[in-house]
């Protein structure tokens, strides 16, 4: 369980998020303005801050810059802008990750857990996941198979990390779409499929002869060490 600080001005989103994150086992404090959020972050030292970029008093990016001056608490920014310039600016200002509104609670929760793992505040604190000969270092953003380093694109890595955190579990494409892309899943969308195909190639296997990546027809996909 992690102590979170939620800085969000919209009351509907705030209360819904408090409930959703509490349901998932987090302790949540809230702030409605940027200045209040800064105060809370300094006084109560949360494990992680979820910061809305569109705040009424101070611009979220400014809050982030000010927060970074006094604390290295992990920050996930929430923004209604899926414009890359906005997200890049937030990441440059010191954000650890971002979610684009509207996001599903499980999506935000997955991001929170990933960031906490990276920052060492997660369950085991190492941030390294191992499935058979496959090693995924979430913090270093590196993966290797049987000691050989894998050259993965960003989304491929995130996909692998998400699956590696749930070895043996069947993960739906809908969940992968939400967790890795922050997008809703439509039946006509083959984004997840094509990235899985690339991942398979880089893992040196094929759909007809799987070793680690197993498609479960109609349900999703699972990552499993070969028997």
């Amino acid at each position, binding site marked *: 369980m992690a102590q979170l600080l939620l800085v969000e001005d919209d009351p509907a989103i705030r209360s819904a998020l408090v409930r959703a994150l509490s349901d998932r086992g987090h302790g949540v404090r809230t702030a409605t303005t940027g200045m209040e959020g800064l105060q809370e972050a300094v006084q109560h030292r949360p494990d992680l801050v979820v910061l809305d970029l569109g705040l009424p008093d101070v611009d979220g990016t400014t809050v982030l810059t000010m927060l970074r001056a006094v604390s290295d608490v992990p920050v996930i920014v929430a923004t209604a802008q*899926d*414009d890359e310039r906005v997200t890049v600016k937030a990441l440059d200002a010191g954000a650890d990750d971002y979610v684009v509104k*509207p996001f599903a609670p499980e999506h935000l929760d997955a991001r929170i857990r990933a960031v906490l793992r990276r920052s060492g505040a997660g369950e085991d604190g190492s941030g390294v996941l191992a499935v058979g000969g496959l090693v995924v270092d979430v913090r270093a953003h590196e993966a290797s198979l049987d000691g050989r380093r894998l050259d993965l694109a960003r989304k491929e890595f995130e996909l692998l990390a998400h699956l590696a955190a749930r070895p043996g579990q069947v993960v739906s494409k809908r969940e992968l779409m939400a967790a890795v892309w922050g997008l809703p899943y*439509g039946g*006509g969308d*083959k984004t997840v499929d*094509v990235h899985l*195909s690339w991942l398979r190639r880089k893992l040196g296997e094929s759909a007809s002869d799987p070793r680690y990546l197993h498609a479960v027809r109609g349900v999703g996909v699972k990552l499993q060490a070969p028997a």
Partner: protein
Amino acid sequence: MRRQVVVLVTATTLLVLLAFLVPLAVLLRTLASDRAVAEATREAQSVAALVAVTEPDQLAAAVTVVNQRGPRRVGVVLASGRQVGADDEGTPAALQLAQEGRSFSASVPHGRQVYVPVDTASGRAVVWSFVPDALLRKGVTAGTTVAVGLGLGLLVITVALADRLARGTVRPVRGMATTALALGQGELSARAPVEGPKEVREVAHALNLLAERIRELLDAEREVVADLSHRLRTPLTALRLDVDAVRDHELRQRLDEDLDEVQRHVDGLIHEARRQVRTGVQVTCDAGEVVRDRTAFWGVLFEDQERPLAVDVAPGPHPVRLAAEDLAAAVDALLQNALVHTPGGTAVAVRVLQGADGRSLLTVADEGPGIPPGATARGLSTAGSTGLGLDIVRRTAEASGGRLLLAERPGGGAEVTLELGPPR
């Protein structure tokens, strides 16, 4: 324009120079001729003074001296009919006229001759002085050359000044043209240099104001889109979070799916609004390159599903009026449509050809069951797809100034062709 100004000034100056130089040359010639005739008359008159008081032999000696000294040739016919000095170059009629007491000058071969009659005790004698052509035109060539030289000098100076003036006008105009072109190609920070004549400076200033206005409008439009995005996505977020609290699993799943649908439409709407902001400026990309890149990306999935994917890009660049990311999204949608709407193992062919009027034709053809009836109205709206994909494809084609064409292939299967417009 610079050349035209120079040509105009040259022509005008030449006309003015000709209007002055031609009369000047005529005047010079007349003056030289008059001067030579006047000198000859004076000489003839001084010889005439001698005729009255001198013996013919002495006169002959004096005339010989005069003829040896000067360029003119003087001759005398005495009352007795004896001729002294140079020969008479004139006609007998002219001599006759002089003998009647008339003093005049007349044209003779190779020059002019002055006749001066003189009355002596023994009768009327006539003195003539022949002026050769060279003497009549003495100084004319030099004078004309100087005048023409001065005229040419004047012409060169005028042309140089005109060229400088034209350059001073043309350079800022050319600067404005470059700026306008850059603005048209989307370089909104381009500004025209404010220089040159007053009117040109005013135009440059107006162009810069216009550029500033375009930038402001685009910024305002961007803000509207950003605001739209915020206003639509914030309540949607609240809704998503609230749905999470629904305990009935089945109901929650259904609500989630409905929300996915709403979100996809909202995303499409925002993307479209943003595209209009983006295409407010000139964009271009190579359709061949985009197709090669996207088919290479999707190729692995086709391979995994054992679907042959043939890619045929005609040689040469295929410039189209679209941002690469927009065309890539359209190609992605077409390939995904083919994956969703055809059974496994179905062959898909992607072609890029050069069309008429600089257009490019991008075709995705499959050997699947074809296009379901009624799907052409707003894009394919069948199992697994919302139709949004093909809607985006249609908008992309139209944004480039082209269109979307759906056809059934003769052997069965669907053929989707994007007619893409060339960059402006």
